């Protein structure tokens, strides 16, 4: 059946839960592009034959192959676009530096797109808020207080605080720290916000 490989790509992305980026399926994409090329060449030869030889019974086949080509194109574009959306969400989730595991999952072009996105986001943030710029990736929900109480869920090690000194994060120790320093670690699951 035509377009099966393209469906595979879509299904792979559909199976990955929200926010996760599976590895870039270069193989699958290449197969889809080959299939498209084969279909196109067959269509090309058939069109020539239909025009010159007057064989109008080839026209439904040509139409069918054309539909498959369109479907393949739609599936690949959806695949690439969804991956880009996920990569964009990664910037908001993890910050500018991505963990290595995620970087291996991205293709070179996707990396480039990510860098460009980072740059335009940074330029935009610098243009807000007067001289210093405003970091809009902080405080995704309206904060209730400057400092929050957090509890450490696993041993993390030393963690630097604003005035240069560091705090040792050991399991089950509780800390009262500024909100903006803790947000990253809360998202990673090392700290837990305690509401008393």
């Amino acid at each position, binding site marked *: 059946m035509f377009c099966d490989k393209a469906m595979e790509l879509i299904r792979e992305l559909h199976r990955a839960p929200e926010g996760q980026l599976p590895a870039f399926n270069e193989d699958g994409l290449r197969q889809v592009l080959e299939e498209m090329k084969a279909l196109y060449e067959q269509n090309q030869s058939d069109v020539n034959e239909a025009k010159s030889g007057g064989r109008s019974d080839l026209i439904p086949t040509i139409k069918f192959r054309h539909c498959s080509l369109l479907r393949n194109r739609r599936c690949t574009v959806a695949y690439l676009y969804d991956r880009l959306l996920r990569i964009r969400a990664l910037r908001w989730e993890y910050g500018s530096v991505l963990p290595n595991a995620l970087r291996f999952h991205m293709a070179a072009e996707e990396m480039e797109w990510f860098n460009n996105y980072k740059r335009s986001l940074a330029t935009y943030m610098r243009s807000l808020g007067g001289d210093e710029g405003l970091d809009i990736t902080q405080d995704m929900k309206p904060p209730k207080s*400057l*400092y929050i*109480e957090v*509890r450490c869920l696993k041993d993390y090690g*030393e963690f630097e*605080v604003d005035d240069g*000194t*560091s*705090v*040792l994060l*050991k*399991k*089950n*120790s*509780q*800390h*009262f*720290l*500024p909100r903006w320093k803790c947000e990253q670690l809360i998202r990673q699951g090392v700290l837990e916000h305690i*509401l*008393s």
Partner: protein
Amino acid sequence: MFVSDFRKEFYEVVQSQRVLLFVASDVDALCACKILQALFQCDHVQYTLVPVSGWQELETAFLEHKEQFHYFILINCGANVDLLDILQPDEDTIFFVCDTHRPVNVVNVYNDTQIKLLIKQDDDLEVPAYEDIFRDEEEDEEHSGNDSDGSEPSEKRTRLEEEIVEQTMRRRQRREWEARRRDILFDYEQYEYHGTSSAMVMFELAWMLSKDLNDMLWWAIVGLTDQWVQDKITQMKYVTDVGVLQRHVSRHNHRNEDEENTLSVDCTRISFEYDLRLVLYQHWSLHDSLCNTSYTAARFKLWSVHGQKRLQEFLADMGLPLKQVKQKFQAMDISLKENLREMIEESANKFGMKDMRVQTFSIHFGFKHKFLASDVVFATMSLMESPEKDGSGTDHFIQALDSLSRSNLDKLYHGLELAKKQLRATQQTIASCLCTNLVISQGPFLYCSLMEGTPDVMLFSRPASLSLLSKHLLKSFVCSTKNRRCKLLPLVMAAPLSVEHGTVTVVGIPPETDSSDRKNFFGRAFEKAAESTSSRMLHNHFDLSVIELKAEDRSKFLDALISLLS
């Protein structure tokens, strides 16, 4: 040194700094910690909280954190030993110690720079005077430099004789002074006891800063009640402290009595109660509570059949049907619950129990949540000492700390269930010990040892549970024995701690008398006995009368203890 103005010398110093809190594992410390946390959160003081359950944990945690902090606050640990010696801190580290353990070590009292004690000085401390214990070393060296001056031989000889006489005089004085110093220190450090609850001290600090709330007041009440439940303070002191807290309670909660401006019925209110001392009776059935409170179980002698009959008589005397009494308290008939307290008090008087009611406090919030202070104490204590193996010690500490907030009621109820199990196990163990005569008199003290196969023995490997069990056992034993002399003896109790390491926990309890001052001499006695027999003993717990001992050394340790105390 003692801090006189808590606000200026403690709070304003730490307000702009980052501090590390070391909190011991008992309910009073938890309550003091909650109050201090609330104050710090109000003022945005960055802090880190590290739970510690013994000296070893304190030392390791200190080593890990000493690079990062300059200010340390110790709650319910550290006042009774030489802190600088044990922790070896840097020059600019400052410790604030808020501890109920007495006597306060003299080095901690007289160190002016690094150790600040958050302890009220009117707490009958009887610290020896500075001159009696410390002596400047410079005086001796001055005199020894004078020998070499001498010009003429005859003058030199007489001067030499004089100097020899002077030196012998000085040496004799020095020896007398040292002997006196040893005596004074021995008297001072001989008995261990407890002072004002740390939670109350913290609450007074909050009051001074005008930042006190009803919640903090409740925690102070729970801290004080913990000291009473664990028999750490005398009855007199408890009543005095209750009076102090009652003034605060009426200050915060007077709107309940005012007819016009009453609060809505589901707001938090604390009220003073003169309530029954039956443990958890409002969350349990009356019958269960009567059987599992050590006061009633000991007086009725519920481990014997005769005792059970007396209990039935008691209930019949009040006219309470057995079926009602065995139901959950909240499901009992309203008509029976109406004058319950007075009825029970009257009947108890007839049966020889004069102190059935105690002064305490209760809290109401929401429409159906009502707790007495002792309920919360038992629930939190059981959460902290539960023997479940899936969490480490700090997990239990965190659970217990959470259960004190009003938004974590499910944890509090879970704690109540654990407390019921613990109390039942305690009474069953006591009953079996008394029926099988496991409590033997060793001469100067009574001794009881729990064998490894005893049911629920793992519940009693933690220090507070074991101390509570031992105290109740002693009370029951005193009621059960006819031997006059045995009634005045203290108790030493041993329970297996860890099978792999072959260790037992040993606890010493002072004798049970009506007007006892709760002073415990076992700390020093255990130390000396272990030294003289070189037994492998570990003084891990902050209370010096609880030790860990290797099981093989048990018999020689006991022999040494017997010879020491007789």
